[in-house]
Structures are given as structure tokens and as C-alpha cells.
């Protein structure tokens, strides 16, 4: 009996092709959308977390000027190389200190030019910023002290100026300075805000100060703590030291600020968490919309189905046999739709993740929930109208309109 019920259910699916397709589609949309949106949201969260880690989680940055919404303050004294030295010598939990200064400039190679950020930095900068070299080397002693000008390129600059050509050893003009390319860093890609993290040229800080800045100022001092746990303490000591060095009277506000990557990271995590929740809500709506679609199709076809059930009952079908057939039909459509939706949702989020550079992170519980919900809706709305009809006197089912 079950075999012939299966055959009959399949025949029904084929006979009512449009209805079958629409039902399946409702489920595909519901399941697919949920899986895709949630998977993407999860990927985005992980991407942000990883990006922040790339910026260096246990890194602090001191910049001149009080922290203020809507731009830097004016008039605060610049930081100096001596500040960096004092931090290094006086704070115990500081591992590395990297003073740096930067400016937007035009760099030229042969007949190519490119506008980028030129940063003057020491070799410690690479450690603190977690910058690794793809080719070449860091600055040697002579270069670091402002001798022979040398520079290290970010991959974006290398790509625009050199294309397929070999950059190492080439002579690059940075403003008025002619310098030799000694290294290229590894690509980091875009950061969370969509900024290219590979678009820079680094030259020794001493060279930058003498030839470009004309002073001993530095724009920022980055430092890494010996451990994550030490960051709050370091931050506190750092503020005290800076106030002392800048001779701020008690009660006066700071005229510098300390940026903490961990704070930024926490903020970003909460933002992406909200994003995931939002995507989840959109997904839930699409699940409901898919469900309503299925409901509509089933309800619209109730008259036809009721009459059909009446016919089957009249020629000798028992109610439970008719119900089994409708149940099998609903289960098959829901399963089929669910599987297609799952495959499309996963494939879609994988493709979108590739395009947006997100990692692909499937949340199995979401897949299960989406699948189960659509399955229940599909089966319930295929099954319950049929159950009502099968409980009627055959003549009432036949007369249904």
C-alpha cells in the first residue's frame, strides 16, 4: 500500500506542477534566505574580529590633541622622539615602542606616479603593527639613522608603480628624496571600514623628519604591551607619564589621547553583533513570508483538493489512506524545497562571502531551525486542509465549493 501511495503522491505532484513548484519555491526562499543571511552575518563578524586582531589587539597609540568628536583639536604640542624614548625606558609593561609620522605625498617611478601616505617609521613599527615583509628586508643601521634613503612599499603602491616589474633595488622618488626600494610588505587587504591597508610607503623616521618634516616631531607613538592583560595598567601609566612630560597642571584636561585597539575591537564586535541580529530578523521575515506563500497556495487549492478527496473517498479510499498520500506529498515537497533552499543558501553565502572577503562560517543550528520551520509549515498546510476534508461525509467533500 505504501508503495502505491508513494506513486500516487508523485503523480499528484506532477499533475499539479504549478502548485508544487510554488510550494517548493516558498520553502526554498524561506530556508535559503535565512541560511544565507545568517551565514553572511556570522562571516562579517568573524572578519571584523580578525581585522581588529590584524591591527594589533594589544596595541596602544598616543596622538597629540584631546580626543574629541568630529576631528582633532588644534594647538596641542606635537609628540617628540624623546617622548617615545621616555615611554620605552620608564614604563615596565611596554614591549615595543614605535614613533612614526606620516603625510600624503606623490611618489614617482619612471613615468608612473601614485599619491599615497608616506610614513616615517622605525623597524619597531613593523612589530607593533604586525606588518610582515613579502620580499626584501627592513631598514639597516645606516638607513635607520637617516643615511642612504631607503623605502619599503605596501603592495598597492608596488602594484600601481611597478606592475609586473621587479621593485627591489629600483629608485623611487618620494617628494624631493630619491630612495631605493628595499622591501615590499604582505597584503592585508581592506580593513573593516573599507580602507586599503596596503596603500603606503615607509621610509626611516630620521629621513622623514630631516628631509620632509624638518623637525624632530613625531605624529604618533604606537606601542605594544607585554600582554593583553597589562593594557589597562599601561594605559593609565602612559597617561600619567605624558601629563608629566607635557607639564599639565592638575585638573587640566589631557592635550593628547591614547587610542586603544581593544576598545575599538569591542565596539566593532557589538556593531557586527547588531548587524547579525538585524540580518537574522530580515531572515525571520523571509521565513514567515515563505510560509505565508505556502499557506496561500494550499488554501487556494483547498476547494479542488477537497473535491478530489471526496472522489477518492467515494470510490473506496479510507480517510487515512488519502491522508497518507497528502502527507507524503507535503513531506516530499517540503524536503525537496528544504534541501534546495539549503544548498542555494549555503552556495549563495559562500559566493557572497568570497566576493566580500568574508570567511564562510555555517551555523548548523540556524540551518536546522530554518529547515525545520519550513518543513513544519509545508507539511502542516499540505496536511491539515486535507485532514479536514477526509473527515467529511464523501458527499459533503464532493459538494464543497
Amino acid at each position: 500500500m505504501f508503495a502505491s501511495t508513494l506513486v500516487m503522491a508523485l503523480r499528484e505532484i506532477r499533475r499539479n506542477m504549478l502548485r508544487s513548484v510554488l510550494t517548493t519555491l516558498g520553502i526554498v526562499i524561506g530556508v535559503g534566505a535565512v541560511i544565507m543571511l545568517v551565514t553572511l552575518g556570522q562571516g562579517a563578524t568573524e572578519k571584523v574580529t580578525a581585522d581588529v586582531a590584524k591591527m594589533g589587539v594589544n596595541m596602544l597609540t598616543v596622538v597629540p590633541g584631546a580626543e574629541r568628536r568630529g576631528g582633532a583639536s588644534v594647538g596641542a604640542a606635537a609628540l617628540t622622539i624623546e617622548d617615545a624614548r621616555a615611554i620605552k625606558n620608564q614604563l615596565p609593561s611596554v614591549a615595543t615602542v614605535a614613533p612614526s609620522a606620516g603625510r600624503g605625498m606623490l611618489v614617482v617611478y619612471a613615468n608612473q606616479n601614485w599619491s599615497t601616505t608616506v610614513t616615517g617609521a622605525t623597524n619597531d613599527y613593523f612589530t607593533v603593527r604586525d606588518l610582515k615583509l613579502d620580499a626584501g628586508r627592513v631598514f639597516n643601521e645606516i638607513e635607520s639613522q637617516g643615511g642612504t634613503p631607503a623605502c619599503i612599499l605596501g603592495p598597492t603602491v608596488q602594484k600601481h608603480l611597478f606592475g609586473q616589474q621587479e621593485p627591489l633595488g629600483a629608485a623611487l622618488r618620494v617628494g624631493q628624496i630619491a630612495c631605493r626600494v628595499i622591501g615590499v610588505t604582505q597584503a592585508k587587504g581592506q580593513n573593516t571600514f573599507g580602507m586599503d591597508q596596503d596603500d603606503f610607503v615607509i621610509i626611516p623616521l630620521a629621513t622623514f623628519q630631516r628631509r620632509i618634516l624638518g623637525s624632530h616631531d613625531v605624529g604618533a607613538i604606537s606601542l605594544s604591551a607585554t600582554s593583553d592583560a597589562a593594557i589597562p595598567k599601561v594605559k593609565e601609566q602612559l597617561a600619567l607619564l605624558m601629563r608629566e612630560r607635557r607639564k599639565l597642571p592638575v585638573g587640566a584636561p589631557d592635550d593628547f589621547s591614547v587610542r586603544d585597539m581593544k576598545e575599538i575591537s569591542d565596539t566593532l564586535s557589538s556593531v557586527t553583533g547588531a548587524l547579525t541580529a538585524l540580518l537574522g530578523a530580515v531572515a525571520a521575515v523571509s521565513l514567515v513570508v515563505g510560509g505565508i506563500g505556502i499557506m496561500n497556495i494550499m488554501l487556494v487549492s483547498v476547494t479542488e483538493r477537497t473535491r478530489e478527496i471526496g472522489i477518492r473517498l467515494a470510490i473506496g479510499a479510507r480517510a487515512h489512506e488519502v491522508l497518507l498520500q497528502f502527507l507524503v506529498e507535503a513531506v516530499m515537497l517540503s524536503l525537496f524545497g528544504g534541501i534546495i533552499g539549503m544548498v542555494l543558501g549555503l552556495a549563495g553565502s559562500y559566493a557572497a562571502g568570497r566576493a566580500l572577503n568574508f570567511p564562510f562560517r555555517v551555523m548548523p543550528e540556524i540551518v536546522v531551525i530554518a529547515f525545520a520551520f519550513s518543513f513544519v509549515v509545508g507539511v502542516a498546510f499540505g496536511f491539515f486542509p486535507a485532514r479536514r476534508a477526509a473527515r467529511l461525509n464523501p458527499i459533503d467533500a464532493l459538494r464543497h465549493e
Partner: protein
Amino acid sequence: MTTGGTTGGPLIRLRGVFKVYGSGDSEVRALDGVDLTIERGEFVAVMGPSGSGKSTCMNVLGCLDRPTEGAYYFRGVNLAGTTLDKLALIRRHYLGFVFQGFNLLARTTALENVELPLVYRGLPASERRKLAIKALADVGLQGRELHTPAELSGGQQQRVAIARAMVTDPSLLLADEPTGNLDSSRKLEIMQLLRTLNQERDITIVVVTHERDVANFASRTVTFRDGRIEKDERGAAA
């Protein structure tokens, strides 16, 4: 079988059967105290004006509907209080029904329509096919097996419905105006077919008709008026 019916005695006995629709002022007594006994092997024509309760009575006989009041003995067993499921089994094993409005499954071939009652009887596919093809040939529809109702004329659909009702070789075949959509030569063919079924396969047949010449094929004519049996005449089969 499931009904535990006897082999002797009349096939059908209705005693004081009422079917009432609505209540109060709008009450309609579609059947108003019907007593009717039909023996095995009879060929009965049911006549009467429109609205006199013929279809209602057929539905009760066909176990498609239940009387409001009264007793229906089928093969000696009173069906009052029988569950819907038991009634389904009676329909499956003993009854064939031809409806006034065909009631074929849409978008389903004639062959599949005729096979359907055999599916519920649990026959293997090859046997179903053989019997269905034969039944369709018996009603003159060879070559039309794979047509769907939409591709058949009203008369052809009627014949598919007849083939579906007789393919199971039922004890009782109920036909509600089976010739209503046929031209006169087809009409005679169908009635001859029913008579053959009645005489050679010993199928008890009850046919509703408005036409005297159709009723003449039967061995007995029952006439309804206002939900009651007005006349019950025997003999004079053509």
C-alpha cells in the same frame, strides 16, 4: 467481509428513512419516510420530478451520505452508527457509483481514473491496467485511454465514469442519470451495457433517469415525489 453481511435476504432495505436539510422554516425534507427493498440481481429505475429526492436517496444507498433518521440494511446489516471508515470499506468492496456530474479526477488520464478504485483494492499494477483497459473498451473508449477529462466530450467523460464504477465488478452499481449527456444511440448502448452487467455478472443496478425509454431497460421502476416513493412498478423489461 468487514460488514459481516449475510448471503441470504435482500441486498438493500430502507426503513423509514428521512433526510432533512436545514431546520425551522427553511427545513427541507429531501427524504420523507422512505421504505424500499431491493433484491439481489434487480435492475431498478428511479424516476420522479426534479427535487423529489432521487439523488439524495442514491447517496444514502451509496454510503456517501447518512440519513437523518431511519434504518439502512445493506446485505442484512444495519448501517446506522457505522463509522466513516467502515462505510469506506463497504464502498470499496461492494459499490460502484456513477455521479450526475462525472466527478473524474482532473488532469488525469481516463486509464488512471478507471484504475483508481482498483488501487484502493490493492490490485497489482499489471492487473489494474488490464482490467481498466477492458472496462474502457466495454464502454466504447478504446484508443482514448490516455486522454484527460478535459480532452473528452461530456458523453465520453460519462462513459469513463461508468467504466470506473464497473471495473471492480461491484455487488451494487448506482448510477445517477448516467445517460443525461448522451445522444440516443449512445444512450441505448450504455443501457444495453448495464443490462449485460446485470444479467451476466449478476450486478444489482439502480439507475436514476428522467426518460421513460431508459427506464424501460429496468425490471422495476420506483417513482419519487416530494421525498416519498409514489409508485413502485415491476416487470415490463424491454
